[in-house]
């Protein structure tokens, strides 16, 4: 039984069809890649899975429940978290506050925070502890009190992952986490992604442009082009798929 199961998903923006009849599923514990040239519809697929857009047609099931058109915060509560292609941190908050905000989002308690009865302080500290632990596991403990927008690019990307993990997801969607990184940073990121799957027991879908980056990392690759899935399978098979090579060379000459 797949954790995420998308059937016949179509997303239209006016006359433009960004995603066309997509079938895509993720098994529990899987690490899969979604690749494709610019404008292929990868981010749009993420936006539908996380509730930012509603499907024009088709179904999105998570853990057997239909989540198409459900609001993003409810989808998060179901256990899906994500990062964004163009980093969306809470910029003027510290790294720790970014993660604390996510830790507490599901359990807000306005009145209790005002009255602050017995146990309140312990509870606050426990929430902070959890946030700190996440920062530590992503190697960000040193910058806990640094404002998010003062962090270097690579750390901002890791902070976004820490914030997503703070919601205790079962499915983590990473939208081009490697974008803008140099080769050694990319290598470290590959190690991190593999580790996240092990340590957090989370299923991961990763978007990238580049087959080489996801090659030895993912169990399976799905390739999107012009909103349609043109190939799917184990990395070594997908890499040699003539349609995939064609899509990449035909678009903007990026090598597959």
């Amino acid at each position, binding site marked *: 039984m797949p954790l995420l199961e998308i059937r016949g998903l179509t997303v239209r923006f006016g006359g433009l069809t960004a995603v066309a009849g997509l079938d895509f599923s993720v098994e529990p514990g899987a690490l899969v890649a979604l690749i494709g040239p610019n404008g292929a519809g990868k981010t749009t697929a993420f936006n539908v899975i996380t509730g930012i857009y509603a499907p024009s047609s088709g179904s999105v099931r998570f853990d057997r429940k239909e989540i198409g058109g459900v609001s993003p*915060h409810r989808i998060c509560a179901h256990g899906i978290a994500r990062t964004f292609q163009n980093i969306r941190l*809470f910029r003027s908050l510290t790294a720790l506050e970014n993660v604390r*905000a996510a830790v507490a989002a599901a359990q807000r308690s306005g009145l209790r925070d005002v009255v602050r009865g017995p146990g309140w302080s312990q509870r606050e500290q426990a929430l902070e502890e959890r946030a700190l632990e996440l920062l530590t596991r992503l190697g960000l403990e040193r910058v806990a009190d640094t404002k998010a927008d003062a962090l270097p690019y690579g750390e901002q990307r890791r902070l976004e992952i820490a914030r997503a993990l703070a919601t205790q997801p079962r499915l983590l969607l990473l939208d081009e986490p490697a974008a803008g990184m140099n080769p050694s940073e990319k290598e470290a990121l590959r190690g991190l992604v593999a580790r996240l799957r092990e340590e957090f027991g989370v299923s991961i879908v990763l978007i990238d442009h580049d087959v080489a980056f996801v090659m030895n990392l993912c169990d399976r690759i799905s390739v999107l082009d012009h909103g349609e899935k043109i190939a799917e399978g184990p990395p070594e098979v997908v890499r040699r798929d003539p349609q995939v090579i064609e899509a990449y060379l035909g678009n903007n000459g990026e090598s597959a």
Partner: protein
Amino acid sequence: MRRPWIGLVLAAALLVLLDAGLPHVLNPYYLTILTRIGVAVLAAVSLQLINGFTGQFSIGHAGFMAVGAYVSAALSVYLGAGWLVALGAVLPVPLARALYFPVPLVAGGLAAALAGLGVGIPALRLRGDYLAIATLGFGEIIRIAILNVDAVGGARGFSLTSAAQPAADLRYDGLGAIYAVVALSVLVIARLVYSTGGLAFRAVREDETAAESVGVATTRVKVEAFVVSSFFAGVAGALFAHSEGYVHTNSFAFLRSFEIVVFVVLGGLGSISGAILAATVLTAAPEVLRGLGEWRMILYSLLLIVTMILRPQGLMGQRELGPLRWLATRPRQRHAAA
């Protein structure tokens, strides 16, 4: 700094005690100005919750103050006067008054909160500047509506005297009690925003899409902030009405709303201390500068312009001072310091 609220409560108690003596030492003119500062501080801090912490743009705060002022005043005039007299017959008068006056404050606050719910739900579901438009409209509508209600004096203004109970003194200008209410309100707002759950307000301000993606129900959070903000604007209005003993819609025109926005922006969006500072200085400044005659408004404007040039992020940016700073620190550091 162990427990700032103990200090606040003590300070409030001290001030209430002072109420008996203050009018003998301070001239009424200063008392009036100090009262107006208290009201301005509460108005500014409450607006800070929505504009500074939640990142929405409300420009009709005076409208909610008007609701609080008029509802509380009408309550006092038409019902409260009788209760006050009845209470005064069985209890010592100061005690009767201390028991009665929280009632119109809470009533004014609740009425304004209700109005806030009515304006906020439709306006905050949409992204963009709808809130600014809706609050601006609301401020004007409420003012014009009040002008046409004869039971609250219409264009003549509304005096807090009861025809049925002429003996009831519905004015309450005890500075200590007023400042105690202001301090308590500020504490409530500060605790709300400076808790882990309260990070949701700032998350919405920083990035709504990202906030939703980590589970923040952004519409709910915005409405919550707006309703709490309106509640305390209503309390400020009620304080104003009862300390002046007379209300007129002119006190709640757009210029008043604009002035409160200036407090918040000048103080620093996202700083309670900044809002307090700016509201205090800018309410006192015109009085302090009174000797300068017509140069007064020019100097006031210059003060604003120079501050915005030198400190575009406002006086305080997003920083806090004193006990507020303590409230804003990380839970573990706060615990370690306590």
